[in-house]
């Protein structure tokens, strides 16, 4: 940029001249009337809002020699205000600002309340607290002198560049607004056209760049297709890895089927051979002995309640138990009442009951009775026992007749607990149980409670049935199955040992 004082060339946006040291910024430039942005001399339009800084047709060189004082510029502009411009007030009229008029209108009472009472003020005079301090009086007097001098300046001394702002008719142009835009309606630029800034350009649309033509070499397409097919194809293991996996899969399958075959052979072979080693050699647990002794001690005609609480899924364990115990009970000549806490148990127990009753010559309704299903919630066993014994609602039971023994065949511990908590505990009924092997760990604490004798006897699973058969001297399906059971247990133990040896051997070898 060029220094307006010495004409030396300076870098753009320089604040001071490098030659003469003069300030190149606002004091010597033009301030935008729209956004108050200062500009260096010689600039036609505002760089911030786009408004024109000088009228069209006037070159920056024709600007007033030094626009250093903004107040002077303002006064110059005021001097060329058109005649039809609205004048704010008549000259010589007393100028009292609105806030001061409001202050004058304050009633005397309010003034007194504000502590102004006693001040002798005439109309038009300012109170002492509103008077100008003495340190500012000189400054204000200089400003008023300068204003008076400017008011006294003749109107003919309007600069040419301001005269050019006056609206005029353009020759050859029918619509002035089309040529110079709409005229300003208010303010200092009232009536002047062409003051609206040029619309700034925000962005230019990007020009499309032409793609350069590619000329692939021969075979490039084939290589690309090959690459594409390789990428799309799922990952396949290598030949060695695939072979190793096939071998591992085959080995796992072989081991699994060998296990199946070993277990199957352990089950089938003793059954086919008809061995009876267990029948002669197996020991009998204390629980089975206690249960047998309890039944053995029952008097003829005693009332025994038997509950068959199992379903077909566990019937393979429970029915041999029930058959062995029912044989013993009917051999003692007791009267039996049979119920079940499972719907399927009622049907399964009835089959066994009828079969054993037929063997012992029992008649239904006189010596044994099946009452079917009892709902397996707390209220089921309790209400059944209460109604049966206390109220004697069945002809089979005499009023007030006590249950001599209750035998529970439980496929799950929940059924055993229901009878123990709802019948054995509250009514003190002697109770023995045959449970599945799954339920045994939950039933055993009740059997071992020697102080309360909650369970007098306990047999567990197919083994318990075999023990009872052996005690009663009636070999049945349970004793027949015991050899298979023993061989399978031995096979399982061996398989566990072999499996652990293989596992730890593999760990030692680092596999």
């Amino acid at each position, binding site marked *: 940029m060029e220094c307006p004082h010495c004409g030396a060339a300076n870098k753009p946006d320089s604040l001071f001249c490098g030659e003469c040291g003069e300030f190149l910024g606002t004091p010597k430039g033009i301030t935008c009337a729209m956004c108050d942005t200062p500009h260096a001399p010689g600039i036609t339009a505002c760089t911030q809002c786009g408004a024109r800084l000088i009228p069209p047709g006037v070159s920056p060189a024709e600007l007033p020699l030094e626009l250093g004082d903004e107040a002077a510029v303002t006064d110059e502009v005021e001097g060329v205000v058109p005649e039809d411009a609205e004048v704010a007030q008549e000259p010589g009229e007393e100028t009292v600002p609105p806030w001061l008029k409001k202050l004058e209108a304050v009633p005397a009472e309010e003034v007194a309340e504000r502590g102004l009472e006693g001040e002798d003020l005439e109309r038009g005079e300012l109170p002492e607290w509103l008077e100008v301090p003495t340190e500012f009086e000189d400054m204000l007097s200089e400003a008023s002198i300068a204003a008076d001098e400017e008011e006294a300046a003749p109107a003919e001394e309007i600069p040419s560049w301001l005269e050019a702002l006056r609206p005029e008719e353009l020759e050859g142009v029918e619509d002035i607004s089309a040529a110079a835009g709409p005229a300003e309606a208010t303010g200092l630029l009232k009536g002047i056209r062409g003051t609206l800034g040029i619309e700034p350009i925000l962005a230019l649309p990007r020009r499309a760049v032409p793609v350069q033509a590619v000329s692939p070499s021969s075979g490039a397409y084939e290589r690309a297709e090959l690459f594409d097919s390789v990428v799309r194809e799922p990952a396949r293991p290598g030949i060695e890895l695939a072979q190793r996996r096939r071998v591992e899969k085959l080995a796992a399958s072989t081991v699994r089927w060998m296990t199946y075959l070993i277990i199957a052979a352990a089950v*089938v072979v003793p059954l086919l051979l008809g061995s009876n080693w267990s029948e002669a050699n197996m020991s009998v647990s204390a629980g089975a002995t206690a249960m047998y002794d309890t039944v053995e001690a029952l008097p003829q005609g005693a009332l025994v309640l038997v509950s068959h609480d199992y379903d077909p899924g*566990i019937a393979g*364990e429970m029915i041999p138990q029930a058959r062995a115990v029912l044989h013993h009970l009917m051999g003692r000549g007791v009267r039996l009442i049979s119920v079940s806490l499972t*719907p399927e148990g009622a049907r399964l127990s009835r089959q066994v009951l009828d079969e054993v009753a037929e063997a012992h010559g029992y008649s239904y309704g006189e010596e044994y009775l099946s009452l*079917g299903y009892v709902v397996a919630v*707390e209220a089921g066993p309790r209400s059944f026992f209460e109604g049966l014994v206390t109220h004697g609602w069945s002809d089979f039971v005499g009023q007030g007749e006590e249950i001599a023994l209750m035998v529970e065949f439980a496929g799950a511990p929940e059924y055993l607990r229901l009878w123990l908590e709802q019948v054995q505990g509250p009514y003190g009924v002697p109770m023995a149980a045959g449970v599945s092997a799954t339920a045994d760990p939950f039933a055993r*604490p009740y059997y071992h409670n020697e102080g309360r004798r909650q369970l007098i006897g306990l047999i567990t*699973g197919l083994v318990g049935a075999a023990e009872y058969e052996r005690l009663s001297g009636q070999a049945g399906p349970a004793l027949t*199955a015991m050899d298979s059971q023993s061989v399978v*247990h031995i096979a399982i133990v061996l398989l566990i040992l072999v499996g652990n040896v293989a596992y730890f051997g593999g760990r030692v070898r680092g596999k």
Partner: protein
Amino acid sequence: MSELFAVWIAAILTLMVYSYLFADNPLYRLAQHLFVGSSVGYSAVVVIHNVLRPRLVEPLLDDATGNWPYVLPLLLGLLLLTKARGTTAWLGNSSVAFLFGVGAALAIGGALIGSLLPQIQASWVSVLPNTAGGAGAAVNNILLTVGTIGTLSYFYFTMGARKGPGSGLLRFGSTVGRWVLLITFGAIFGNRVMAYVSLLIERVHFLLGDWLGLVG
């Protein structure tokens, strides 16, 4: 003839279930669905003929005036059916409240009398040979006592990170209890394996004996 037919059906269904050894297949699925469907159907029939008819419907039909209290469970049961629709579900709240209230009362009372108090009493044993009934019984009672206290210590979750001899003793008891629990779970698992072996033997015995006639 019908028995022979039933044996064949049972044998074929058994083989269909064991076909799962190869892999999951339609035959296994068919047997599974047949079992579930027949169980549910049979249970519904039993409930109707063994509970509702003899214990509710027949008393009311025989002597409605004398058996008028049976109307109350009938009403409560019918209100339970309103639970099927969301707009009328509130009508069944009284029935559910009755069921839960009676059930909880019986369960708590029964558990106290039938399980909790007798088992607490059963764990109060002598560890001295002369009063326990011999050295073996004394050792057994010591194991019972240590196992019971250890298991209770293991479930004392608010033990925290306190220092001191009491906390150390509690940690030791907790470790003992963990081992007791592991042994218990092992015993449960072993019993379960034994139960399944028994069921396998029963099925094989059925196939070899009742179906094929190879075993007497």
